[in-house]
Every structure is written in C-alpha cells, then in structure tokens.
C-alpha cells in the first residue's frame, strides 16, 4: 500500500499551531532573560563570593547540568505539589527552563569572568573607578564579548529544548502538534512541518543573536 502525503490537515490547523508557537516564544524569551540574570548573579557569586556561597552555586550548577531537563520538569510539575508547591503546567515549564538555563549561563559566564586578567581590574582601580564601574566596564562587558558565542548557542539549544515542556502538557508548539496528530493521524506530515518550524525559529534566533553581537560589540 502506498501512502499519500496530505499536508492539508496540518495546515488547516495553523491557528492552533500558532497559539503553540506563541507560548514557545514566550517560554524561550522569559527563560533566556531570567536565566541570564541568574547566570550573571551566579557567576559573580562563584568568582567573588565567600566559600559557602561558592559551594552553594557550584552545587546548583553541577546538579542541574548533570540531570536531564525532562526529569527536572517532572520533579517540579509532578513532584513539588506533594511538597505543597503547585504550579500550572505553563508556569512550571517557565520555572524549570529558567532554573536550567540559569545553571548553564552561570557556568559559561564564570569562564568569561575568570578569563579577565587580575591586572585589568587593578588598572581600573588605579584609574579610580568604583567597584561597580569596574565590574560593569572592565569585567562584565569584555567577559560577555568573550563568551557570547557559547551563550548564543546555549540560547538556541534552550529554545529547542522548550519542546520537552509538551510532556507536562504545557501548550507549546510541540504540544499543539501532538493534538493535531491525535486528531488527524498525520504523524509524518505534522512532525516534519513542526521540525521545519523549529528550524526556522532556530535560524531566526541565531541571526538575531548575531545581529545583537554586531550592534553591541563590533560597532564601537
């Protein structure tokens, strides 16, 4: 029996898929922004903090980086309610992704901070810059430029990883695809279309991040 491809059913559900796409974008954006903030705080604590704080942050980073995202999601969405902390699926997804990206960006930013030579900071002090000014102009800015490519690819990986949140029934693009699949049984068509959509998103995100690099770090 030959199989006839039929993409019509898939494209007929475009409004439904679009709703999923919006949540995927929201999840990516929120977790990138919040995860980056956690990363900056975490890296600063890891490099300049006291011994207790350093150990605490290192533990957070290692635990998150050495366990799968899907298990973290299950733990937060299915596990935490038994400890009295309840989220709806979309919030749980956002929390898990933020915690996840926070750990990765802490590690990436830490490498950047450690790459700034001590003498640079001393030069800043010699110029009479305040601690905050040194952190901003001498440490964070050059550190960001150094690790920007690593950070950017981590962001793209995170955007793709948001597809996993469909497994706790957060209504993202992948979840929408599963619903369309169960209504039409067009498995092959829907998943290839979805894969293409993610590819387009990934390429767009990579392009935007490249543009941002040009704007912030090159045209100066």
């Amino acid at each position: 029996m030959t199989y006839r491809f039929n993409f019509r059913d898939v494209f007929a559900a475009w409004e439904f898929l679009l709703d999923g796409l919006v949540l995927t974008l929201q999840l990516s954006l929120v977790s990138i922004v919040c995860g980056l903030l956690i990363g900056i705080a975490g890296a600063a604590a890891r490099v300049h903090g006291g011994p207790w704080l350093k150990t605490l942050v290192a533990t957070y980073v290692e635990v998150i980086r050495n366990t799968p995202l899907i298990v973290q999601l299950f733990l937060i969405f299915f596990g935490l309610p038994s400890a009295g902390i309840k989220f709806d699926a979309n919030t749980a997804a956002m929390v898990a992704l933020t915690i996840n990206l926070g750990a990765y960006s802490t590690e990436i930013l830490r490498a950047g901070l450690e790459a700034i030579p001590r003498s640079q900071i001393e030069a800043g002090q010699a110029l009479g810059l305040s601690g905050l000014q040194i952190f901003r102009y001498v440490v964070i800015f050059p550190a960001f430029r150094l690790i920007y490519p690593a950070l950017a690819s981590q962001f793209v990986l995170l955007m793709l990883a948001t597809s996993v949140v469909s497994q706790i029934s957060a209504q993202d693009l992948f979840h929408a695809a599963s619903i369309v699949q169960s209504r039409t049984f067009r498995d092959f068509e829907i998943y290839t279309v979805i894969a293409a959509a993610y590819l387009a998103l990934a390429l767009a995100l990579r392009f935007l991040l490249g543009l941002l690099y040009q704007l912030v770090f090159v045209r100066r």
Partner: protein
Amino acid sequence: MIRELALIDVLYLIAAMRWTLALTAIAFLGGAFFGLFIALLRIAPFAPARWLGAAYVNAVQGTPLLAWLFVFFFGLSIVGVTVSPWIAAAAAYSIYAGAFLGEIWRGCLQAIPQTQWEAGASLGLSFSAQLRYIIVPQAFRLAIPPTVGFLVQLIKNTSLAAVVGFIELTREGQLTTATTFRPFTVYLIVAALYFALCFPLTQVSRRLERRLHVAR
C-alpha cells in the same frame, strides 16, 4: 493499584539504567560514524561537500531531538516502513549525535595548524595520508575532553526516549510513579541516578581538558 514505594522499586530504577546506558552506547556509536563523516565533509577540499556538511549540521542542530524521535517512532510506520523501537531510537539518536560530534571533531581537526598540512604535502603525502598520519593523531588528543563532555549530553538526552515509550531510566520512573504515586521521591531518585552517571564523566572531561591546557 497504589502501593508503597519500596526498596525493590529503587532496585528496578537502578536496573533500568542499563537501558539508558545501552541507548547511549548505540547513539554514540551511530553518532561517531555519522560524525566522522560530517567532520571530514566539513574540511574537505571541495566546496559543495563542505556546504552539504554545514547544511546537515545546521538542520539537525536547529531542530528538537524530540521531533526526530517522533518522526522515526511514529512517522515511519505510518508511511509504511515498519521499524523496531531500537532501530528507530538508534536512527534518531545517531542523526542527532552525528551533527554535534561532527561539529566538535571538525573544530579539533581545524585546530591543527595549517603548517602541519603543508609539512605533510611537502613530504609528498596525499590528502588522505596527511589526514591519517599527521592531522588525526594530533586532533584525537584535542577531541577527547569535548567528546566526553558530549557523552554527558547524550546520556541526559536519552531520557527523551521515555516520551515515545522506550523503557529506560526516566520511563521506569514514570511507571514507578504511576504505581506508587510518590512522584517527588521517585523523580528525585531518578535525578540522583542520572547525576551518578553524568557527574563523574563531567569531572573526567574537565580534568582531561586541564591536562591538555598544561601540555600545550
């Protein structure tokens, strides 16, 4: 039927790690095969080969692994190709791992200075002989730490096979949760088991990398 979470459940979870490890091994072998091919394509002295390699890497790194798993598990059977879950998982993970390993190894091959190639050429070695006797032996050392690092990613990503019903550590955790209704404890144990697998590898990768930096 709901019953108490007992030691036997923990033992079952530990036993399920063997499927996680088996899946990782298959994915790594398949990925290494594809990856080597892609890395060579990416440095080939023939532009369309390089474009092809780059297109493959971009396509795979730009799509979620979950989509590949769904296409191979559910999509192929609908199109009329019947595949066993192992074959489907092996295919999806090999494609995925091939793109990442290919990119890692390309970086290692390109890290070898151009003068090494030229030295080989001036000795009258062919392209393949330069690659085999001069470039690969040096690149191999560079490749070990990031490859071990990627192995950690691979172990973690085998958890996604649970979504398509493949029984491994995460799936076993889901099943145990269903019978004991203790999600917090069960997933904590599952996370701890993954950590026990991945953390030592992360440390090894880090130590190897440090040693490499000292050696250079």
